[in-house]
């Protein structure tokens, strides 16, 4: 089986790079997107096995992204995780309603992230 492909979405370059780096180091094939709109475009033109997205972003936030992605046949059952801070916990329900698989609370250790993704990906 080919490498698991993950789409990492965050408007903060340092967070995005960190997420991408950690996942790549763990052997995942990672694509990056700076906001929901770009992510949606990439997801449409490509096929990812998992999406990890920040919630609060310009142009299109993470929850709208997840809602949009769930409408696409290719992403109906794809695990999609939100990266959220504890202040953003009220977003969890909204995110779940939009179709999010789960969330990872910032700040997180890169290894914690990798472990969570591994679990989700089986």
């Amino acid at each position: 089986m080919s490498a698991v492909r993950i789409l990492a979405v965050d408007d903060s370059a340092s967070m995005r790079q960190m997420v991408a780096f950690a996942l790549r180091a763990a052997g995942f094939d990672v694509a990056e997107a700076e906001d929901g709109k770009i992510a949606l475009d990439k997801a449409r033109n490509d096929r990812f096995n998992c999406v990890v997205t920040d919630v609060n972003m310009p142009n299109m936030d993470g929850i709208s992204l997840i809602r949009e992605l769930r409408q696409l046949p290719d992403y109906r059952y794809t695990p999609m995780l939100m990266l959220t801070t504890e202040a953003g916990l009220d977003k969890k329900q909204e995110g779940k309603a939009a179709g999010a698989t789960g969330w990872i609370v910032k700040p997180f250790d890169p290894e914690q992230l990798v472990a969570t993704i591994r679990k989700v990906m089986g």
Partner: protein
Amino acid sequence: MSSIDLTQFQATFFAESREGLDAMEAGLLALEAGTANGETINTIFRAAHSIKGGSATFGFRAIAETTHLLETLLDQVRGGQRAVDAETSDALLIAVDVLRGLLDRVEAGDSNTQGDASLNARLEQLLLPAATAATKKTAATVQPNPLGWQIRFFPQPGMYATGNDPLRILRELAALGDCNTCCDVSALPALHDLDAAQAYLGWNIELRGDISRAAISEVFAWVEDECALEIVALIPPVVAIDPIVAAVADAPIAATSAVAAHDHGDSSIRVAVAKVDALINLVGELVITQAMLRQQSAHLDPGAHDLLLVGLTQLDRNTRDLQEAVMSVRMLPVEFVFSRFPRLVRDLGARLGKKVRLRTSGEGTELDKGVIERIIDPLTHLVRNAVDHGLETPDKRLAAGKDAIGTITLSASHQGGHIIIDVVDDGRGLDRQRILAKAAERGLPVSDTMSDNEVWKLIFHPGLSTADSVTDVSGRGVGMDVVKQNIAALSGEVDIESQVGVGMRVRIKLPLTLAILDGMSVAVGGEIFILPLSYVIESLLPGTDDIKRIAAESRMLRVRDEYLPLMAMADLYHIPPATTAERSTSVVVVVESEGRKLALEVDELVGQQQVVVKSIESNYRRIHGVSGATILGDGRVALIVDVGGLSRSLIRAA
């Protein structure tokens, strides 16, 4: 501790956090000025949010702490529970400053730096009245762990639609301890009714081991709304356990999320300046090699080598395009400098009791990064002066029939190969009489017949620029000599226009870039010198009658009706006269700097070309009369003449 080294992302974090703070500051000022739009508060909030997320991840506690308070406060603003009054605005702006300082300290390696306790207290104080709803802690009741747990887990049919898989949850449970799983298939329909996308199975699980309830809850955290779940302790300890998983109590903060955002995230990459500079350097070398090829190919027979020559012409064009493209990478919009002034003007105006309106235009005008960075100080000085000494107090303005609010206008524009930056105020203007009086008092050569222009130039004189003379000489001129020096160091010029009671304009004229220069190459005794083309007025062959010797060392050249000081380049740079070139047949190039003309005598005009400027100062030391050097097509080094410096030294000598 993580085995992944986070330090490599810190540089990005610092850079983006500073940009975030700039955006916050601009947004807060816009809120205050009433020029904010619906997206402004979201931009501000997002900046705080990102900095907080990053700082917490990288372990910068002080920053995380302050941004957390900031974020909470901003979230209330965003949710409409709080208006941005002067007090809030002040605190938020101070927070921006404090965070800038913290970023600097942390970046310098002090990752244990302490936050500003008084600021944090101030933010907390602001949060107090509205905080009741915001923070509600989950009551964490610590209980001894039982021997194990009995778990009933029945997913809802739609669980797969959120990407959750019961199998994952079962695996995670199995990883926690000794797991005995019993599958309940009673809900499974007949095969032809089965929808593969639905979840039909349920599980009864006996999980044994020293496992905390929290660990189990965590496994189910994502799906607690998508399943029927019961978790019961196997052998109940002293305290009875609530059979329902306690959901994390969410604060009922208004969830205002959907935001129709319009700002376009520009697609850009962040590159170290050193890399860009290396690129520019390499292109510079390429330009030199290319010039060399062109020079060598001039001897070739066009008939025999036509393809080669066509190729070289093509290379010539490509090199030029490449050079332009690479140079443009270093260009930054002037906005980079202008964006700092709203805050400065606001704070200064408030402190001095003046009402100031700041207008900016031409923010998109691009300038070389090196020039931008070095223009910040002089420009800050000019703006400060304009607010401090140029603008009158509101009552005085009203008395003079002016708008009580003073206006300072910053504008940038292209003009030929230059960038013009204007700092204009509608204040009281310069006072001619007082400047003249003060200059005379300082022993400067002045007279009442001097033109306004000459009088205004006096404020650049170090003697008039000292602090004690400022406030009495119509207030202008603090450090103006330094401003002028700074700008001259950028090969720029400063020009002043002023009218009493109407205002003053300081105009800065700067070269587009410091790395490439259009030059006129001239031969002097076997050496080649480059005269920056922007200074060159004309070149001429003077008749012997036109040259007047005034003293033994001093000659003047008559150009039409003007007499200009004439200097031989060979004398200025101590070059023995070339054997072939006779003095009598020499050529004169007239140059102008800061409004003063000067005639330079050279042996021969060689041509015009673009040269790549190499610094002598950074490789050797500063040499009087030389602003830099370049490498010619044939590999020889040519010095670039510092016309401004020559002209200034001439004035001093006079």
